[in-house]
């Protein structure tokens, strides 16, 4: 029987929401003991394998005392494991140590066993054993630009990994700061893909790289059309990131962190606007997801079931969709609330409140 699982990574641990395929009523498990007192910046759900429970779950946590670690679970979160040697560690000659895992991204179905991870310091990692152990992608680590990538408030990290749905050699990453980079040769060489994206914090606001891209998204059926929520600026590219154009008209603000695409409608995209860099609260102090059904030409606020008064931002990885039909959309806030929609955003219900700051969410209907 199908069931829905919702991974909720917070500043102080991991919670798991559980529901049936309808996703109307949720119950909450947690905090998960293995992740107590850990900042959970990355969670992942891999539904490609033949696990008895329909999915392998991932979580990347960082303890302020004991450092970072990646765990996986093959029983939908009842038990968690890490390999004896650890999942991710810089080789000795890299002269770096892992600070935080920001993203755990299973590759598309045609690449069984491949899972990517993005980390702080800015590095991309590739696993070919289903996400148990990862190898450093040296082509990006050795990039001559790396010494010029800066650190935003959150640290200097590859926080988004976007594998191409059919071409295993093509992967895009986004980092803060640094911007969008892309490989077309399986990770050996990487090019910045930031033309048109503004960097207001530089004297030259349109540099080749150095942008603070907060999140990147694309629909697998239209992989060359990419969406970016920037540190001021919401953009679309129709040529795989070569040129970016603003789609912020019609939004109350072009500042925000997450951007996600509907799982079945490539033209439907969601953002969560905040007032500005200098005032990071929701516009008009209302909790509102904005949805476009025409790839960013027009936008509508989604309000049904969301609080009319809220001062809580949504962070870059704390909005997601599942792949069920009708599509589920999920938002986690910095005041520890989770809102879920089982009708593509038309209406929302509160799944949780009073959790620690929500850093990341992922959801799937499995089994």
């Amino acid at each position, binding site marked *: 029987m199908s069931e829905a699982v919702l991974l909720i990574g917070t500043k102080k641990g991991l919670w798991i929401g559980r529901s049936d395929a309808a996703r109307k009523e949720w119950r909450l498990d947690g905090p998960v003991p293995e992740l107590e007192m850990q900042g959970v910046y990355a969670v992942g759900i891999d539904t490609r394998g033949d696990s008895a429970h329909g999915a392998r779950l991932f979580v990347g946590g960082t303890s*302020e*005392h*004991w*450092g970072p670690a990646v765990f996986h679970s093959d029983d939908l979160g009842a038990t968690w494991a*890490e390999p*004896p040697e*650890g999942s991710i560690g810089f080789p*000795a000659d890299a*002269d770096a140590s892992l600070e935080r895992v920001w993203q755990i991204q299973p590759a598309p179905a045609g690449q069984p066993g491949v899972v990517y991870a993005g980390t702080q310091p800015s590095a991309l990692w590739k696993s070919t054993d289903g996400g148990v152990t990862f190898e450093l992608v040296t082509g990006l680590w050795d990039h001559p630009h790396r010494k010029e990538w800066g650190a935003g408030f959150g640290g200097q990290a590859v926080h988004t990994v976007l594998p191409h749905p059919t071409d295993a050699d093509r992967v895009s990453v986004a980092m803060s700061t640094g911007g969008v980079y892309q490989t077309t040769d399986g990770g050996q060489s990487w090019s910045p893909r930031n033309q048109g994206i503004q960097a207001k914090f530089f004297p030259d606001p349109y540099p080749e790289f150095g942008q603070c891209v907060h999140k990147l998204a694309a629909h697998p059926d239209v992989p060359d059309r990419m969406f970016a929520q920037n540190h001021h600026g919401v953009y679309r590219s129709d040529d795989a990131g070569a040129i970016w154009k603003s789609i912020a008209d019609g939004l109350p603000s072009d500042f925000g962190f997450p951007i996600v695409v509907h799982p079945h409608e490539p033209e439907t995209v969601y953002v969560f606007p905040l007032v500005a860099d200098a005032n990071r609260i929701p516009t008009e102090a209302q909790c509102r997801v904005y949805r476009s059904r025409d790839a960013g030409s027009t936008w509508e606020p989604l309000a049904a079931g969301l609080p009319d008064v809220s001062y809580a931002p949504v962070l870059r990885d704390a909005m997601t969709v599942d792949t069920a039909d009708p599509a589920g959309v999920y938002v986690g806030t910095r005041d520890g609330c989770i809102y879920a929609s089982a009708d593509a955003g038309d209406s929302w219900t509160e799944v949780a409140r009073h959790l620690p700051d929500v850093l990341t969410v992922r959801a799937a209907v499995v089994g």
Partner: protein
Amino acid sequence: MIAVRLPTVLRPFAGGAERVEVEVDGSPTVASVFAALEAEHPALRRRLTDEQGAVRRHVNIYLGNDNIRDLSGLETKLTEGDELLVLPSVAGG
């Protein structure tokens, strides 16, 4: 034999033990104790040091009443029967 005493939170990474003992040949140091821990309890070692061997910033390791940072750090010399005490510092928010 050198002993390492662990806070409760780290005991799951040492099979539940409060105290682990490692055999170190020659002239033992804190670094050689960590190397021995790597062989027997790699998940524990990762929580004490990063992958380049540095003691994590908010981890304190005491020899008697002395923090090894105030001695010779990883090169602090140990003698047979010494006990290292691992304590988390005040951190984390």
